[in-house]
């Protein structure tokens, strides 16, 4: 166990060196020149996985890394980021943007749109952070994405004849919803369901469960809930033959992942934002939707450790 871990770490070290060498050229610097980077993430596995990849890649390039993975849901993590308790965090560009702009009282922020295109959302998220006065830089987005998805069991879809969230709105009082606790204050969750699809809030039958987690999936599988708010890359969806309801009103934005980094931290980095980008961009480029799903299976289903999975993925980039 210990050996395999060390091996994985060593491999990832090599891999990251190689990536940095190829992509950045000047990114290799001696350890003592680089500041400690504090990396934070959301509570569920995918956010932790991306954060762990960033952490191992940065460690391989001479950064000291302090991990604060699994902080919680976005509102808590964003506050930790804005207050400077963490320097770097993976963010879903769509929801991250929505957090700042949807329903904002600031006219300038409210004017920024959340779109169905990941790169547009990245650019807009950068703009929103600037307007909101958060000194931070959004780096390149992942090739793949993971969106929020309303998921039902196949038998529910058949019995109630639902294939889209609009269909679901018609039978909303006959089903039990499973939603994350922060949905209530999330414009892309409650806002989409209530204002977009006209589903009365709160739903008559509602269970609050952690987002994108095994608990929510287990509850759907065990018939305790009928509609689960899951992440589209969650492996259980395909495994159980569940039906992802079509978001026919396009309420859910494109959700590619991008590292966001505090500018005050970047100022202390030898080489600045370019040095960090040279290390992390190749990772983002390699993370496709298939990769997110596949690595998700290894963590959520096969119970492999996030450390190992992240390390081996980084090592695989080398070849």
């Amino acid at each position, binding site marked *: 166990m210990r050996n395999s871990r060390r091996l994985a770490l060593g491999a990832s070290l090599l891999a990251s060196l190689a990536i940095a060498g190829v992509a950045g050229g000047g990114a290799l610097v001696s350890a003592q020149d680089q500041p400690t980077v504090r990396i934070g993430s959301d509570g569920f596995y995918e956010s932790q996985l991306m954060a762990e990849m960033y952490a191992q890649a940065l460690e391989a390039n001479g950064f000291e890394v302090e991990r604060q993975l699994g902080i*919680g*849901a976005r*509102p*808590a993590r964003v*506050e930790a980021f804005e207050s400077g308790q963490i320097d770097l965090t993976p963010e879903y560009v769509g929801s991250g943007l929505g957090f700042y702009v949807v329903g904002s009282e600031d006219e300038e922020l409210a004017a920024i749109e959340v779109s169905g295109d990941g790169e547009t959302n990245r650019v807009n998220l950068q703009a929103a952070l600037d307007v909101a006065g958060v000194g931070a830089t959004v780096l390149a987005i992942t090739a793949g994405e993971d969106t929020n998805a309303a998921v039902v069991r196949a038998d529910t879809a058949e019995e109630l004849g639902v294939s889209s969230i609009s269909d679901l709105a018609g039978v909303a009082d006959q089903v*039990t919803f*499973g939603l*994350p*606790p*922060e949905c*209530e*204050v999330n414009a892309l969750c409650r806002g989409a369901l209530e204002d977009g699809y006209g589903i009365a809030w709160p739903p008559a039958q509602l*269970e*609050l*469960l*952690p987002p994108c987690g*095994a*608990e929510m999936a*287990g*509850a759907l*599988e*065990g*018939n*305790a*809930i009928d509609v689960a708010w899951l992440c589209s890359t969650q492996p259980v969806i395909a495994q159980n033959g569940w039906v992802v309801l079509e978001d026919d009103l396009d309420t859910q934005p494109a959700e590619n992942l991008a590292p966001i980094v505090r500018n005050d931290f970047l100022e202390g980095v030898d080489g600045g934002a370019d040095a960090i980008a040279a290390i992390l961009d190749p990772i983002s480029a390699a993370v496709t939707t298939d990769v997110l799903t596949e690595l998700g299976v290894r963590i959520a289903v096969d119970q492999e450790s996030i450390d190992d999975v992240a390390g081996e993925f980084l090592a695989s980039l080398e070849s």
Partner: protein
Amino acid sequence: MEQLLEFFTDPASWSGDTGIPNRLIEHLAIAFLAVLTASAIALPLGFYIGHTGRLQMLGINIANIGRAVPSYAMMVMLLPVMLGLAPVLGYDPRLGLRFLPIFLAMVLLAIPPILVAAYAGIQEVDRDLTESSRGMGLTERQILTGVELPLALPVLVGGFRVALLQVIATATIGAYLAGGGLGRYIIDGIARRDDGMLYGGVVLVAVLAIGTDVLLSWLQRRLTPRGVRIATELETERAGAAAP
């Protein structure tokens, strides 16, 4: 502080399913049910061990293992089992989500302190007393109910006190698994970054725990047999006088 005030003065905090009265009832219901169920298991076993002195190792081991099992892990492990048993045993699967895993984890949490209090309380009764009772012709059952139990009562209530306090405090994490109770305010408050709700929940749980403790410590004193109380007071006085 302001947000906390806002939480407590908002009429919405006091009405409906998500209101404080309903959450309090949910919390107390699971706590009392868990402690009652744990008592039904732990008391007979504890009395048996205490009275006969047999199976002591078993009692100690159950108590120690029980204390070492983390409640949250227990809940997560029980979740798929309870959901899976729903169609087999025919109960509502929602019970398997929001009640049974939390309830059972709380029962397991409550057993060790009650078990230990039951056998330690009985065991600590002066052997001379039980021997002379036996000499007076009392049956074993009469010795247990007439002599040992009354004398062990304060210790026993102490066990309930610990069990109930632990359960009240720990039942809050049930909110991770869609559970009700006051923990909802803490979990939802963190997720929504609603500090008023978060600290409101913390204050409510703390007040409930302290209130329960005060009530039970009063009960503990009331239930101490008069003779024992006087003897204890005399001893304390003597100890006090002896101190320089």
